[in-house]
């Protein structure tokens, strides 16, 4: 006979579970927090042995060096160029990918038509193509059209990469809207387009926001394609820009950490904004088809 935990026994168990959960999650988050702290520490504390575990002094030196406020630093990392290119490529591609992905997602969620499943599957599978594999032919083709080293060329690729996941998310969100709503719109004289545009799209704005953030982050963090298509600072974004801190035998860890913190900013905003929608968006369809 297995004894069931009741009363004080159960309370003690709960306390143990809570403690274990906190320890595990702190261990999971610690590496990331270490990087953030490193960005604000003086270099002497980072590179000494034995290591200084607890920061003694915080400084903005790394950022002063990065943005050229320190006259002693001659060679700077082109952080302004990375920022501009990252914002441009991610922003443009997000706007267009979300627009096109939403249209497609709506069609998949609402309508019955021939090749429904093959088309959906085909679009999803285009996302499974590894960036490395795609980057080679894109480099050869873009070379002919002058799109190598071009931020807009990069944005074009990111649109195509982001459409599948957007369509998938939006398909899920649109399916949560009761079909009766659409049908009554038809009865009231709405066409297919105005039912979508005036009734269902406004209802799915939270989903749209989630999809937009996902698309933005995917483009913002993308490395494989940009590292082949951007040969210099005219089109390099943050991820390939990180390599500017590595030389053959030395790495400027603090500089890297400092730039990482800038790179994280959109993701931090994302975590604050969409904690709730994230879960419902990703798991829709698992509960009831």
């Amino acid at each position, binding site marked *: 006979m297995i004894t*069931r935990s009741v009363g004080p026994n159960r309370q003690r168990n709960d306390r143990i*579970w*809570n403690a*274990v*959960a*906190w320890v*595990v*999650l702190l261990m*999971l988050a610690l*590496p*990331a927090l*270490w*990087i953030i702290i490193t960005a604000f520490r003086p270099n002497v504390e980072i590179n000494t*042995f*034995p*290591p200084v575990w607890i920061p003694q002094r915080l400084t903005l030196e790394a950022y002063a060096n990065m943005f050229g406020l320190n006259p002693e630093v001659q060679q700077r990392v082109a952080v302004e160029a990375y920022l501009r290119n990252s914002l441009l490529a991610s922003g443009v591609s997000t706007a267009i990918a979300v627009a*096109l992905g939403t*249209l*497609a997602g709506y069609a*998949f*969620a609402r*309508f*019955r038509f021939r090749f429904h*499943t093959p*088309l959906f599957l085909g*679009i*999803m*599978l285009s*996302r*499974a*193509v*590894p*960036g490395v*594999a*795609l980057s*080679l*032919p894109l480099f050869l*083709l873009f070379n002919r059209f002058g799109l190598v080293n071009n931020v807009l060329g990069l944005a074009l690729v990111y649109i*195509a990469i982001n459409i599948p*996941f957007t*369509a998938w998310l939006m398909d899920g969100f649109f399916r949560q809207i009761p079909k009766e709503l*659409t049908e009554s719109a038809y009865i009231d004289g709405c066409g297919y387009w105005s039912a979508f545009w005036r009734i269902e799209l406004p209802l799915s704005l939270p989903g749209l926001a989630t999809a937009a953030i996902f698309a933005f982050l995917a483009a*913002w963090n993308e490395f*494989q394609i940009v590292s*082949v298509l951007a040969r210099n600072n005219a089109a390099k974004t943050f*991820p390939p820009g990180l390599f500017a801190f590595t030389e053959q035998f030395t790495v400027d*860890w603090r500089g890297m950490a400092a730039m*990482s913190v800038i*790179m994280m900013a959109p*993701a*931090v905003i994302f*975590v604050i904004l969409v*904690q709730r929608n994230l*879960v419902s968006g990703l*798991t829709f*369809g*698992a*509960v*009831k*088809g």
Partner: protein
Amino acid sequence: MAANSNSPGEKGAATRFLEVSRIEAGFFPFAMISPALILILLVVGFPLLYSLYVSFTPYELLKPNSLNFTTARALRNYQKLLNDEIFWRSLWNTIVFLAVTVNLSYALSMALSQLLARVTVGQSLLRTLLMVPMMFAPILVGMQFRWFFNANVGLVNNFLISIGLIQEQGQIAWLVDVPLGMISIMIASIWMNIPVLTIILLAGTLSLPSETFEAAEVDGASGWQKFRFITFPLLAPFSYIALTIMSLDIARAFDIVRIMTDGGPARRTEMLWTYITRLAIEDTKFGLGSAMSWITVSLSVLFTLYFFRQLVKARIVQ
């Protein structure tokens, strides 16, 4: 689970999922899909076909004349790869890497989600902590662990010295030794995968009906039995969503490998993705690199297709 499918007039589970009573609208849905479709065909479809063509030619970037197709030499690149020891090693490394990372990420996330489902104090703060690794781009994850595992200034060795497990002279070359290099990369990759998987599995766990568990408790089921026979099977659709998302993103591991070891030293951690870059970009052998790309694309698509099919099946059973 049959009790769960309470929709009246069940007319074949498969059609129920595929056609959730959608509306017939003639040409309109095609008009809505075509912009997305055209763009994908243009930017993904056509380049892939082009790379298939290139893979049948001996094309090298610095020899423009080499981009022509001859039937006799068409399969040369594929033959070369099949006889290339490094290709097989990179394929093997990739398979081992995927098998270990996918399984361990899933198992650890499952354990963590069960742990978090029981937490009563500070839930929302804990979930925010869980999302911290999600703020990191894959390339940042790689950079961070490259630093942590660095032999001379790395956190891991410093820590081991501090607590007296290793001597100052006996620093462990995490990113160099076999099999530590692969293990380091796997740890980085698992760290990156855990948050999303855990969030999905946790959401699933919290949505399960509590009556089932109460009934099991009355019958005297142990904690493990409850997990094994109730939670785990009921979570199947969530598991497959998690695995599908992971399989779509699995090539992100390239970023990690690229910055942590770049396939080295001496090709010990070479994987399909890094080998493609080395052949095509560094050695400018685009023909060979494209052949390799096509092998990789086929494998990735099959992998994703498998999980996607399981996902559809799991949805129908419920």
